[in-house]
């Protein structure tokens, strides 16, 4: 750090150049991915860093159609949307209860929820698999939706409850004095005020669900139900040699995440660090 006499002058130019080089090196794997995804196989032999004569977008078509990425993409969307919505709605209910209501075993239930936040999924994936087998839910959308909603419950509850506790009490009291029922207070007063918290949480659930690997790996083995990361894994197993199409597939998996991240990055990072410092 260059703290000179007087005001902060900022770091010297060489340090800034190093910072930028470091920043660019960090994202080089993604650059290479994009570059390779528009190459032909002969282009590939000319070297990893050589530009192709012209872009081969047909790799994307190959991944999308022959590589079944269209199916995987649809599955990811069909699972992410309900997971986010159900997790948020249930989180609003349980968060509301933990913030404002008294009910039996409140502390015990709180502890039970926090246990779920600490135990890794890997620890209970075996019984979960057999339970789902028993309930006839293996190879369904439902199994991926319900398990991921369940896993988001602890975080959703704590996040919502702490956001609700920060709301001004006077507003809630005024609403009750005006004769609003609890449902009305929750949906007409609290929910609109919590919009920033709700959108941050939706962002987290979107990214976590989109990226989830273990659950769809174990709970689904029908290719028509695979989500993008799993589809990518099995695609790689089948077509190891076709690197351009493989990288095009990888771009299809991460593109939505990158877009969402670039649009909402400030919100995402602030939400994450606020959650981390609690």
């Amino acid at each position, binding site marked *: 750090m*260059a703290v000179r006499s007087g005001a902060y002058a900022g770091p010297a130019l060489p340090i800034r150049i190093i*910072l930028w080089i470091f920043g660019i090196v960090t994202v080089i794997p993604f650059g290479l991915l994009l570059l390779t995804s528009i190459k032909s196989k002969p282009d590939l032999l000319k070297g990893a*860093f050589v530009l192709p004569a012209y872009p081969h977008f047909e790799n994307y078509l190959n991944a999308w159609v022959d590589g079944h990425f269209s199916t995987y993409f649809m599955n990811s969307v069909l699972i992410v949307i309900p997971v986010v919505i159900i997790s948020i709605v249930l989180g609003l209910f349980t968060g509301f209860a933990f913030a404002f209501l008294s*009910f039996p075993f409140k502390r015990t239930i709180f502890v039970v929820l926090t246990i779920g936040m600490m135990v890794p999924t890997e620890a209970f994936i075996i019984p979960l698999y057999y*339970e789902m087998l028993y309930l006839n839910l293996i190879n369904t959308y439902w199994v991926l939706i319900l398990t991921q909603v369940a896993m988001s*419950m602890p975080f959703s509850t704590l996040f919502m409850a702490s956001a609700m*506790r920060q709301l001004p009490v006077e507003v809630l009291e005024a609403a009750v004095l005006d004769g609003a029922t609890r449902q009305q207070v929750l949906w007409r007063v609290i929910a609109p005020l919590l919009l920033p918290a709700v959108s941050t949480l939706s962002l987290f659930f979107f990214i976590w669900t989109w990226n989830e690997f273990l659950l769809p790996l174990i709970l689904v083995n029908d290719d028509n139900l695979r989500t993008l990361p799993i589809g990518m894994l099995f695609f790689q197993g089948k077509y190891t040699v076709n690197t351009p199409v493989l990288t095009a597939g990888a771009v299809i998996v991460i593109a939505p995440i990158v877009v969402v991240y670039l649009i909402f990055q400030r919100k995402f990072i602030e939400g994450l660090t606020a959650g981390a410092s609690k």
Partner: protein
Amino acid sequence: MRAPRPPASVLDHAGGGNLLYVLPGLLIYALFVFVPILAAVVISLTEWNGLGVPAFIGFTNYINLFADNRFYVALGNNAQFIVFYCVIPLIIGICLAGIISVVKQRERLVLRTLFFLPYVMPTAVLGIIFQWLYNPAFGPFNQFLKAIGLKAIALPWLGDFTWVLPAVGAVATWYFFGFCMVVFLTGMQRIDPSLFDAARVDGARGWQSFWHITLPSLMPEIRVVLLLTVIASIKSFDLIFTMTRGGPGNATLVPNIYMYQLGFQLNRYGYAAAVAIISAIVVFAVNFAIHQGMRRLDRTTG
């Protein structure tokens, strides 16, 4: 985090209605998370191939586990991974945050976006991407090494018993350091600027004020980052699974990969569950140890 004290709220009605707010979420959670957790504990006390009736065998799985060489190899590898998951990202993150915090705002935002990008990616897909990047025959990484005249060290990274763990670990470091930096950067904004002014009056130079003011003030962030990255390293599965499946040999075997092999490949579900339970206990223990250790540190320094 402590359990919330029940606040006296105007919204709180005595009566049965309150429970209705908790039940839907709680039932789903219980059915798909908590019951399986309890079941995992029970299964770990049995011998079960997944088909027949589990045979209760008490703590035999755990006793066998403590004599199982592969399990110790997995634990040892995990300990080495902690260096790449926690220690190196933490050091890079804190240094970067220190430098970047004095860069102009707009430039800082762009750099932050670049450094943080890996952290939002699906680790499983990153594993597949890096498998290609590291490929000894046509991977870009070795092509780069050859191009700059370092042909001698263009190794088959993921096939080399010595280098596979650092090679996989480097991906974890790349994944986590931006996250560490962002958390530290936020922490630095909390520090009272007058502390730095006072230090400057006392003649403290850049590094001294970093060492004596910034670093101690960041203790809460360091604790959070340690906690999250250590737990992430114990839970590591996706990245290692997609890059090496634990190989070559047992070179990158970690408890979760071992659990997967035991359960889903060898059908030794009881034994696999015991491995999983031990990992979960380690997560709890580490959590507790970091909280305790940091509390002691807080007391001695402040």
